[in-house]
């Protein structure tokens, strides 16, 4: 690795244009990444962030324009050229092989790791990298990735990407790396990124959490509709000006909530303490109840348990009692072969059918109205669901739940990878629906969202350790409660 000058160009893209059918994913983007800098990349879902990432890592050839790695324009373009130039990427959706162990995944990502004793060498390298980035991670490198939690998989993927085997690492693209990490792990990662950049590496950091971007990046590039709309040093931006540049207006201060105690009458659903530890759970009609705490401490298990208690085991109910919005889209959210419309209407088929036959006209109307309501960015609802960007796919899953008549909606960290504008819209819809008597149970890893809830249960080690209400729902209180051990 040569680090003679600090202003070496690692990659430069000029006038790149990419078109998918009628959609202009990139409309002439020019940017350059130099060594030793961390570039923040922000923009709404569908602004072209993932596309430019794919162009840089060689997975996608621009229809016009050029990509040059390093100082050598003869190197060509493509995945292997990018990898040889030391460009690596951590994708938004987890992209490890779940049937392989951590070491075997390291081998898949790093071609030079082979020959006699590759397992031992690989275990050594990945173990040291994990220790370096996430001290105290507790991940065994012989474990199958399928047995790890989402956060652990993300940690492994990040560590594998930063490993240096054979080719040097010069530029790492991190696409929403902190979305499935809790705050402690996220800060460990950010600290490592700073160290990596200080040592001469470069990082493109993509996140919807603006404070994170402002904290870590040297330079911020704002994208909108496939174009770069603003680019300057991070110190030149504030959270407000970033949002303005992205083109969405957000209310800075949340209107003070009117605190009405909705706890009248019987609860909409309730559950006894988990394994007899901690507090019991109950939720009343019209409430938004949050689940908080560090990631993976039993929140999802609780949601699943609540959902199963409300839905029939063998026969679906005519009147659904609860809907579930999945956080892990690819695993239990989308039907990858179906159209957007079918993905949305699948939960509502009894409502949309007449004498056992589907009323297609009503289905179309429903699709159109929700497409406008939450702005799903597609020219045609009959397109495949995978033609949407991640955030837009999540919107479809939201619409699926909100369009039903179920009085209870359970949400398993549904806003992962959704842009701020959409989030604000969904928050508004949630509040209106709750006022009409719907109950929302909402597990979120983002503090801002938890703070929107009427009441919050904080989890630790599988049990509820604290209940916070109304004004007591603050970041400090939740953080304090997250580290409380349950009394046995």
């Amino acid at each position, binding site marked *: 690795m040569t680090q003679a000058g600090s202003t070496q160009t690692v990659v430069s893209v000029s006038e790149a244009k990419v078109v998918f059918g009628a959609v202009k994913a990139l409309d002439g983007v020019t940017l350059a990444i130099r060594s030793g800098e961390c570039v923040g990349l922000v923009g709404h879902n569908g602004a072209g962030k993932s596309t430019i990432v794919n162009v840089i*890592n060689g*997975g996608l050839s621009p229809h016009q324009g050029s990509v040059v790695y390093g100082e050598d324009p003869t190197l060509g373009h493509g*995945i*292997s050229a990018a*990898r040889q130039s030391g460009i690596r*990427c951590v*994708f938004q959706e987890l*992209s*490890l*092989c*779940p*049937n*392989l162990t951590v070491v*075997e*995944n390291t*081998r*898949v*990502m*790093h*071609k030079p*790791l*082979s*020959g006699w004793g*590759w*397992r031992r060498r690989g275990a050594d390298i990945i173990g040291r990298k994990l220790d370096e980035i996430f001290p105290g991670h507790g991940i065994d490198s012989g474990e*199958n990735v399928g*047995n790890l939690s989402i956060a652990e998989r993300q940690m492994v993927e990040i560590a594998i990407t930063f490993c240096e085997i054979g080719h040097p690492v010069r530029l790492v693209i991190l696409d929403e790396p902190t979305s499935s990490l809790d705050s402690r792990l996220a800060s460990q990662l950010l600290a490592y990124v700073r160290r990596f950049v200080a040592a001469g590496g470069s990082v493109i950091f993509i996140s919807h959490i603006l404070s994170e971007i402002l904290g870590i990046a040297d330079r911020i590039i704002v994208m909108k509709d496939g174009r770069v709309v603003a680019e300057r040093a991070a110190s030149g931006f504030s959270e407000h000006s970033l949002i303005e540049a992205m083109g969405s207006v957000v209310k800075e201060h949340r209107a003070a909530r009117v605190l009405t105690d909705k706890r009248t009458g019987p609860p909409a659903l309730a559950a006894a303490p988990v*394994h007899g530890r901690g507090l019991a759970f109950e939720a009343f009609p019209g409430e938004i109840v949050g689940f908080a705490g560090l990631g993976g401490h039993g929140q999802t*298990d609780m949601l699943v348990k609540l959902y199963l208690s409300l839905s029939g085991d063998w026969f679906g109910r005519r009147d659904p009692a609860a809907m579930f919005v999945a956080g892990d889209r690819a695993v239990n959210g989308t039907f990858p072969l179906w159209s957007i419309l079918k993905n949305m209407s699948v939960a509502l088929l009894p409502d949309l059918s007449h004498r056992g036959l589907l009323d297609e006209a009503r289905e179309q109307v429903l699709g159109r109205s929700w497409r406008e309501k939450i702005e799903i960015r597609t020219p045609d609802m009959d397109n495949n669901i995978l033609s949407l960007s991640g955030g837009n796919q999540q919107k479809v899953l939201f619409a699926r739940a909100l369009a039903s008549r179920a009085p209870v909606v359970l949400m398993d960290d549904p806003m992962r990878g959704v842009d701020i504008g959409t989030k604000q819209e969904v928050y508004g819809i949630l509040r209106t629906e709750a006022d009409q008597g719907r109950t929302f149970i909402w597990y979120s890893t983002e503090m801002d969202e938890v703070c929107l809830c009427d009441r919050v249960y904080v989890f630790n080690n599988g049990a509820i350790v604290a209940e916070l209400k109304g004004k007591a729902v603050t970041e400090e209180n939740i953080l304090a409660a997250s580290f409380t051990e349950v009394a046995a």
Partner: protein
Amino acid sequence: MKKIFSPDTIRLIVPALSLTVLLIAVFYLQPRAMSYTGLNLLFNLAVPIALATIAQMLIMTVNDLDLSMGTFVSFVACVTATFLQASPLLGIVILLAAIATYAVIGVLIHLRDLPSIVVTLGMSFVWGGLAVLILPAPGGQAPEWIRAIMTSKPPIMPMAIVASILIAVFSHLLIMRSSFGVVLRGVGGNARSVERAGWSIIRARAAVYALAAFFAILAGIALVGLTTAADANIALRYTLLSIAGVILGGGEFVGGRVSPIGAVIGALTLTLAGSFLSFLRISPDWQIGAQGAILIIVLALRLLLNRFEARRTRR
């Protein structure tokens, strides 16, 4: 100790356990089977099935399924009993061409994004037709050398057991331990990320199909070594037996989760189940159904153990 068994251990324990139980039952019914010759007779037909199961497992590693396995093994058996015996050079050329054809099928399936079931179902008629052209009536003769190998009597253990162990160990090293096998399984687990890491999926698929053809050819040759003659329909059962063997041995249809040792054990279990039912004097009319019942019981056992383990670890 947090975990007693990992899910992967359970995958291997269940087939091993069912094989042991079946073996004990067979020994109880027919104590004379508990001898060198008895074991050889029980298991010698398992050797070609085990090889075909490994071939099927390779195809299943990349989330495909080969429905032409039975006819392909029959075709190879016919080639072995005729060309390979009469003019070995021509026989080898034909078999090499068969391997190349398999590789091309793999490339085609990948390039055109075709369902492997459809392509291999079509190919099954091609192989079947070629087999009939080569040997219109049962006949031919096994080459001397393969006859000698298959009927040899190594000390301590009968040939059938030695061969099964060799197959299991060799394929385990190839698929589970080597850095090459890791990439193949990675294709089954998450082809996209393997591709993003700079590997050629086309090459991987071609390699898998060619390797599967190689094992299937070994299966055909071994089969002729046992039967001394061939027939165009000699191995038709192998298609379903090989799939059942992989599943029985802890493999899965998708996701690249396979186990070569399990697959060999699965093939042995399936062979033994047939003998067991004969010893019980169940009429051949019912044997296929009874074999299916054994399969269901073993798979139910695996599910049960997995669920039990999941409940334990959640505590």
